[in-house]
């Protein structure tokens, strides 16, 4: 599923609110580069929590996770990875200490 189009649109709108009409590519750093600040990061986080059911309290948070269209896309993909079969899930639980909610 293509997540990038709505992400691009969301980020474009968020930048427009800051009167930032400069273009960006999918790998452009938007947060670490300073185009977004920590308060804007909350808007991105809330969008990901609401639209993609990502639980940051569970997976932890780092700015690099939501720094660009690409990083957000891979974050969604990693948390929405197809459910492994039971045996795999057990194995993964042991490796990581937790299983993602999705």
């Amino acid at each position, binding site marked *: 599923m293509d997540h990038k189009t709505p992400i691009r649109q969301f980020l474009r709108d968020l930048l*427009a*609110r*800051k*009167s930032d009409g400069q273009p960006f590519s999918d790998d452009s750093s938007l947060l*670490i580069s*300073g185009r977004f*600040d*920590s*308060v804007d*990061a*909350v808007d991105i*986080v*809330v969008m990901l929590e609401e639209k993609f059911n990502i639980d*940051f*309290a569970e997976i*932890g*948070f*780092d*700015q690099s996770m939501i720094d660009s269209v690409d990083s957000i896309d891979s974050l969604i993909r990693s948390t929405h990875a197809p459910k492994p079969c039971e045996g795999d899930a057990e194995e993964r639980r042991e490796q990581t200490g937790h299983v993602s909610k999705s």
Partner: protein
Amino acid sequence: MLRNDENKQAMSPKAEKPDQFAKIEAVLRRHPGVRAAKVSRENFGPDELIVYVVPHDDYVRVALTDTDEERKRIQKWRKTFDLMQMGKEAAAAEPGFNIAGWNSSYTRQPIPAQEMREWVENTVAEIISLRPQDLLEIGCGTGLLLLRIAPRCKRYVATDFAPAVLAKLRKQMEEMGSSWDGVDLLERTADNFEGVAECMFDTVVINSVTQHFPNVSYLTKVMDGAIQALKPGGKIFIGDVRSLPLLETYAASVELYQARPDMEFAELRERVALRVRQQEQLVISPAFFLALAERNPRVSGIEIRLKRGRSDNELTRFRYDVVLHAGGGRNVSTELAWLNWTAKGKGIENIRQMLNDEKPESVAITSIRNARVEKDIKTLEKISHLGVGGTAGELRKELEATDTDGINPEDLYATGEELGYRVELSWASCRPSGSYDAVLSRTDTPAEKKDPVKWPQLSTTGKLPAKYTNVPGQNVFRERLVQHLLSYCEEHLPEEMVPHALVLVDSLP
């Protein structure tokens, strides 16, 4: 900002006669959020009808004081702080020194740990000098102050609104292993004084918190609650307040630092204006606290102190501390003969010489140029002059080559200490130049025999006018206002006269 319905743009033949402009402008002016409106004559065509609108400041301000808006802004900050505690930086923090999230506006990188350490130590020293026994800390965060001050108090009640932050603090307290008897941690917003009785505490601390308040009325509510909670003779320490008189200077300083070398002054000017307007934090003039003290009979004295510290960063340059004293009746303060130190060439050496030669009982000096912000003031001056050209790179070079001739407050403290003088500094004058006032008095006169200083201060009406703070979060509201005004035009104007776009400006072009 364009309205969303792009299809309509292509469909509607737009107003073509200038006499229709007047009607569009008149309709918009009738809206309570609009102070002035003007149709753009330059960008006018069948597919282009743009109107410049100057919004009413009061309308924006009132809209943002709306309780729903207030709640949203508080929730957003809470989330910001909780997220900071989920990162690697917080996980790696040394016990008792969790400074995750303290980033520099200039570099966007964490403020160096040694600078934060100096900031913590100086703040702790200021608070301990108030001799707290029963202390209420509003917004304790990761416990940078609590972990150092609580062991000296009988009771330490600390509140914070971010659950993840409090959880981290509890964990730290457990790990440090000390006894934390008498310490209570409460999860609540700053304006919640439930269970706090009148005259319950001798000290209230609100450190580096006010910038996250949603608006001036919330700030007022918290201050009123804090004053109520105070015993007679108690003190409120409001630390790390961002200075409104220096907001534009701060913005100029950060923008110059970040600018490409070839950036022209005109672009820098725009960026500075944008940074000021886009502030998400509450920036407060010392005048707010002066007015608060004036209107509240429980407040007997007020000090507006410059930050201590040798570190050269935005905290020492653009923030200040306030100490409010509660007591029975107003303290009497004597008038002093103030020496004006504005002139160039009046440096620290002249003060040293005066103290050495004349050995006065005390000396009061006003308008001391502040070495900490001198170059930033110059930056703002340079780029503000319309018609003066230049680039960021050229200005940076020029500033590097210029010596500062103001006095660093820490040099004044050091000189005073060396020559046996107690040094008090004040920013109550609220001058946008960042200059400050000083009183030096001989340490062989006991502090308690000394009358409180009547500092030069901006005269306030005591009514807490809203102009004493900025309006954080304007951007979101301005965006909403544009959408709202476009709908308003659709309701009140024939279709061909509905603007394609509204541009909010500070004054009409």
